[in-house]
């Protein structure tokens, strides 16, 4: 009997690592990639590296905050544009 999940080779699995990390795979493809990762330590090592890298980039990329006075300036401008609407 064939397994219900289609099997992927290493190349096909690796092509989908980013989509898996971004939650962009359909459930059946995701299951197939995860199955491959379970069965293949080489791919799992690459996947974990990519996962760590994505986490690293997201963390560093979000370290900057908007300057405090920018928000105040914007809120102040909203008052002006609300007032203009009222007239």
């Amino acid at each position: 009997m064939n397994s219900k999940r289609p099997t992927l080779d290493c190349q096909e699995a690796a092509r989908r690592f980013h989509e898996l990390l971004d939650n962009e795979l359909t459930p059946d493809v995701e299951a197939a990639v995860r199955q491959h990762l379970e069965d293949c330590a080489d791919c799992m090592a690459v996947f974990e590296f990519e996962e760590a890298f994505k986490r690293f980039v997201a963390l560093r990329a979000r370290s900057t905050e908007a300057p405090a006075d920018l928000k105040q300036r914007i809120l102040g401008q909203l008052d002006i544009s609300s007032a203009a609407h009222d007239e």
Partner: protein
Amino acid sequence: MDPGADEKRRAFEKEAVPHLDTVYRVALRLAGDQTQAEDLAQDTMLKAYGAWHQYQRGTNVRAWLLTILRHTFINQYRRDKQRGNTVDVTEYEKFTVFHEVQEVDPEGRFFDQIVDEEVLRAIDSLPEEFRECLVLSDMADLSYAEIAEVVNVPVGTVKSRLFRARQALQRELYEYAVEAGYIKRSVR
């Protein structure tokens, strides 16, 4: 006082204003300097407020704000289309750095030693069309479909740009880490 205007203001403050940090971060990566980024973020938020009746409730407000931001950037701010572009993304597309570091640092711990400024500099060195996909995904958490709408390209294009952008960024940061002495280049 017009009660409609009051309600609009409340809704905008509750739903849109909390995304100001994201709007500013993306503005900074597109515009490249702080003064411009502040102006761009402010223009974006005020335009969004003016067009608030066009925002479709229940859709991703971040994606909507960033669509306005991108339009505003392209029409009013972008002067030099070649900003960034110092990295040849096509050169790196096939290679993950993993294969070079697997013997010394398979978990990529060396990345953690790289400071924020260096990561942002590396992001800025990507060509604009790759940089914006990366930023919209990794900074703003948009889905591929949302990014496709914001930048007005097919989802498949988003996918391939994002993939290349990440590989190029990884390679840039690896090269930096080697030069800074955070990791030894593997001899293969």
